[in-house]
């Protein structure tokens, strides 16, 4: 194997290559090149550790040969990177002495009150999320109503007088002006509010601290942004952002204060840590889903599906409570808005309407058809995801300046208007106006009087209404050509739109595409001559198509099934929807991952999936961990601590605390773990041994001081430590987590992975048999392995 020798020589460390033979047995009998292929991890963009990898990668490695070792290398953005800017959340409780003391002081009543306040917080989360949903809904309805009315009158005027291109320009102008507002907010003020927010919340629940994702400012930008983008006529929905909004509400309410507004209500102080906050955020996400689709159970299951490793029965029950409150708050306020106070029958932002009656019953022989539709949905979804993947890479690489992003969003808005207008203009599909006026803004154009343009119901409308009319309009209100063209154009528009710097979701466009081709499918089936009207209702197929398309794009399973069932209010559709989503997922996963996972990858987030990649048992903690570890002594000099913290090249967050066995020169033994945030608080309060001695009245530091600083701990640069103080000593005994989790060096990667995923760890110390620190495993060390096409691959760390 020539490439082995090549690699060995490439690694440019003669001593190491010489040692190869000796090292091999340590690696669980894996093949010889394995330790070697790990060596050059300072070069190449992708490393493959699998057994077959070296052959495939030969070329890539040779090209890396030219790059100088030791100098940071710059590569264009790819999906195979891990960003340094993401940190873990501390889901593991820090059981230091302060914590134990506080727990001892807390009375029985205190714990009861805590439990009650958890319920209160969940109720508040549900209530506020419902209110926000209500606000978004009303704002969109009103503003979109104004916009469509203006355009409609203009079109009517110019249909007769001539000059319809002016109407087209007006429409495009209105669209891009409104979208510009939203895009400016997002691009310049809060880029994290872009997109649907579901990937971000998924990451948060996975245990990753995405900067600024749960801030008040994000919420404001998100809400205004989503109103702008829906009113601006983009191919987007307002449901995904609702989930993000719910999560922000939860993170804000549970803390009882707002750092942005500099208001502290002195409430819920106990909840000011990541563990508690995570529970509330999952409640918020559930409340968001529930408000968006009127699906409280679906919301709970969504949180379960996305954030499941940290669940218990009481938490589930509380989350369900928040979901219910949220959907019924929305319901109640919408009933007031619609002048039907007390009528609680419009539960979600999107209302699929009720599927009832005989026409929507399905039969056994339709099940294979549904499964076939699921397969189509999977294929189309995969195509959507692949296109969007390339587009997103292009956007990250080239369209990264805010002004460019705003321009892009405006262009998309204008083109959406232009395409829609052209479609409507050339459509010959005229339908008589129904007696109950389903169409909010019927456009006549060149249709006979008393008829309306059927293409316009699909395009000249907010997407939610279009979905509903596809589900429920009479058979015959769309002709196949209209639906085919609509599917085609909307598919590309939606694919182009997702990933713009506007806050907008992908749920509704997917449903719309699916509903369109599903209805088309139903119509074509009905046109097959057969005895009896067994394919009576195309609305049923529209629903199945919508489920298939959505499942093919986002690849959610359980929660999506329940959401769809709840949104249609028809439990009998459970089976077909489940089958369809399963098929769509299986078919889609064959080609490419789900859209949210793609975007998480492209953000270079160190996301931990359910399990370690398969075929990784031969990797041990020794190979996975980072080493050497920066350790602190139990009684450490302040100067050392400050220097360690301010070292920008090693931005560590957790430091094992070691104790030197006195009198010997043996290496120090592990006795605890301390976090950067804790050290910063300690430095800020100047908890030095010398000071404590001199000032006897010095107030003892409490857990409260740490909570007050949470979650925005000041950077080390803002803390001033004088030259004298640098010489002081700091005793970390009280503050460190005295019992950190440790693993022996030989622990396999899946085992480490499981510990991380199940316990929500942030740092895992690797110790040898004498309890000396050998290395430290963090999330990024684990997340870099993933199963690629050629076996196990390793991601690169990069500065983004």
């Amino acid at each position, binding site marked *: 194997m020539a490439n082995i020798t090549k690699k060995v020589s490439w690694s440019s460390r003669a001593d190491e290559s010489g*040692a190869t033979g000796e090292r091999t047995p340590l690696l669980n009998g894996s093949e010889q090149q394995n330790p070697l292929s790990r060596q050059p991890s300072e070069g190449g963009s992708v490393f493959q550790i699998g057994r077959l990898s070296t052959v495939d990668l030969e070329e890539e490695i040779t090209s890396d040969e030219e790059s100088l070792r030791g100098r940071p290398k710059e590569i264009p953005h790819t999906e195979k990177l891990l960003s340094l800017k993401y940190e873990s959340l501390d889901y593991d409780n820090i059981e230091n002495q302060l914590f134990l003391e506080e727990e001892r002081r807390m009375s029985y009543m205190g714990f009861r009150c805590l439990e009650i306040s958890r319920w209160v917080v969940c109720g508040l989360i549900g209530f506020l999320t419902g209110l926000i949903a209500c606000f978004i809904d009303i704002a969109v309805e009103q503003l979109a109503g104004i916009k469509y009315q203006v355009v409609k009158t203009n079109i009517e005027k110019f249909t007769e007088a001539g000059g319809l291109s002016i109407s087209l320009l007006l429409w495009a102008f209105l669209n891009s002006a409104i979208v510009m507002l939203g895009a400016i907010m997002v691009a310049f003020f809060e880029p994290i509010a872009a997109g649907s927010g579901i990937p971000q919340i998924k990451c948060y629940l996975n245990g990753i601290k995405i900067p600024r994702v749960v801030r008040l400012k994000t919420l404001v930008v998100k809400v205004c942004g989503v109103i702008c983008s829906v009113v601006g006529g983009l191919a987007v929905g307002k449901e995904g952002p609702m989930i993000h909004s719910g999560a922000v509400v939860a993170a804000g309410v549970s803390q009882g204060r707002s750092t942005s507004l500099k208001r502290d209500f002195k409430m819920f102080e106990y909840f000011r840590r990541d563990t508690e906050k995570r529970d509330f955020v999952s409640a918020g996400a559930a409340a968001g889903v529930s408000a968006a689709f009127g699906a409280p159970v679906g919301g709970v299951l969504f949180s379960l599906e996305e954030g499941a490793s940290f669940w218990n029965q009481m938490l589930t029950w509380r989350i369900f409570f928040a979901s219910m409150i949220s959907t019924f708050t929305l319901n109640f306020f919408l009933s007031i808005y619609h002048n039907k106070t007390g009528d609680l029958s419009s539960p979600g932002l999107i209302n699929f309407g009720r599927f009832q009656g005989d026409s929507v019953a399905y039969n056994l022989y339709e099940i294979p058809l549904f499964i076939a539709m699921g397969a189509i949905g999977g294929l189309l979804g995969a195509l959507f995801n692949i296109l969007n993947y390339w587009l997103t890479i292009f956007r990250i690489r080239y369209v990264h300046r805010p002004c460019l992003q705003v321009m892009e969003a405006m262009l998309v808005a204008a083109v959406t208007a232009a395409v829609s207008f052209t479609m409507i203009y050339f459509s010959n599909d005229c339908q008589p106006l129904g007696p109950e006026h389903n169409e909010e803004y019927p456009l006549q154009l060149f249709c006979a009087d008393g008829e309306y343009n059927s293409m316009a119901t699909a395009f000249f409308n907010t997407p939610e209404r279009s979905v509903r009319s596809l589900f429920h309009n009479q058979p015959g209100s769309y002709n196949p050509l209209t639906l085919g063209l609509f599917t085609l154009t909307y598919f590309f528009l939606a694919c182009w739109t997702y990933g713009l710097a506007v806050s907008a979701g992908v749920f509704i466009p997917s449903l719309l595409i699916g509903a369109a081709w599903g209805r088309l499918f139903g119509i074509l089936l009905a046109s097959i001559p057969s005895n009896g009207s067994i394919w009576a209702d195309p609305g049923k197929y529209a629903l199945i198509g919508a489920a298939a398309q959505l499942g093919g794009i986002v690849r959610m399973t359980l929660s999506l099934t329940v959401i769809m069932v709840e949104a249609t209010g028809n439990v009998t559709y459970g089976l077909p929807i489940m089958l369809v989503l399963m098929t769509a997922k299986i078919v889609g996963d064959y080609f490419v991952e789900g859209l949210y996972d793609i975007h998480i990858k492209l953000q270079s987030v160190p996301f931990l999936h359910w399990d370690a990649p398969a075929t990784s048992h031969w990797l041990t903690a020794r190979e996975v961990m980072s*080493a050497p570890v920066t350790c602190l002594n139990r009684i450490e000099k302040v100067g050392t601590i400050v220097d360690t913290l301010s070292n920008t090249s090693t931005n560590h967050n957790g430091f094992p605390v070691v104790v030197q066995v006195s009198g010997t020169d043996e290496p120090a033994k592990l006795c605890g773990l301390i976090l950067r945030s804790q050290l910063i608080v300690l430095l800020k309060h100047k908890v030095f041994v010398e000071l404590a001695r001199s000032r006897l009245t010095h107030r003892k530091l409490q857990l409260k001081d740490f909570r007050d600083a949470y979650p925005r701990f000041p950077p080390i640069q803002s803390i001033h430590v004088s030259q004298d103080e640098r010489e002081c000593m700091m005793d970390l005994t009280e503050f460190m987590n005295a019992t950190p989790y440790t693993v022996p060096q030989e622990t396999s990667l899946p085992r480490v992975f499981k510990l991380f995923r199940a316990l929500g760890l942030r740092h895992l110390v690797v110790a040898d048999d004498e309890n000396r620190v050998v290395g430290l495993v963090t999330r990024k060390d684990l997340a870099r392995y993933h199963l690629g096409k050629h076996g196990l691959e390793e991601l690169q760390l990069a500065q983004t």
Partner: protein
Amino acid sequence: MSLYRSCSFCVLLLLHVHSIVFGDTLNLTAVEPADRPAIQSSPVFKPGAPGSLGLLASFPEDLEISAYCSEMLLIFGRRYDTYVNCLVPASRPVRVCQNCYSSYGSLREIYNNISSNQMGPGNESCGDTLLRSDRLMLVYQLYSNLKDLWGESSCERCITAGFQSLTNDTLYFMAILNQTNACFQKYQQGNHTELCTNCKNTYVAMNELYSGMEKNLTLCIDIEDAMNGTRKLWSKNFNCSLPREETVPVIAVSCFMLFLPIIFYLSSFLHSEQKKRKLIHPKRAKSYSSLMNIQDKQS
């Protein structure tokens, strides 16, 4: 309740009640009229249906209907007959509101009399007897069908209160409609383009009036149907819809819009600086070797 006054009517009611309860056993010729009252409402009440007299004798004389009530029933039947006879010819083209509002008014009046608990001359109320004493509730069903029909047609909106006359709006609309139709008649022969230009004014005025009325909710089925018919004539028969004339400018503008993003993406591809990521060297590579060195030494 036990008032036995007029035997001839009691006979009929008995027949009526029993025809429902023992419908199977009865002589079919006697039952038939009761089953199809909508078509033939009065025959039920014609005394002396030949087969029934025999039955009558076999029942005790506990008949519950008074002369007053049967009088009411008779009137109801007659008015019902009138109304239905008016409706059927007016069904196409729809003229049900214009032609039949007065007969509906009188029907409603008599029904209200029956159903209201107001006492008749003998201190009696016919509401319970006539409307609710059996499973079929024939009178009620008959009336409620017509009432639904009336509601469906929204005739109320075109009729003044108390069923006096058509509203002024309706009359005005009808006048305009006649004008338009006259215009259509006039130009119907020959080239339709002439019709389209000449009748446009009245047609547009009619359209506008119609949309105004639609907003005010003063439309009834007559007006809707008349408008529908006129529109169909205008658009389908005379082909006066607007032609699609501006294809070129619309295509030009859309193409222009479609080109903008291409230019945008090309220029950002060519001119924008590609974002590069700085790779960070993980510490473990070095550490790994050093660890190995330690172990090597140890071993």
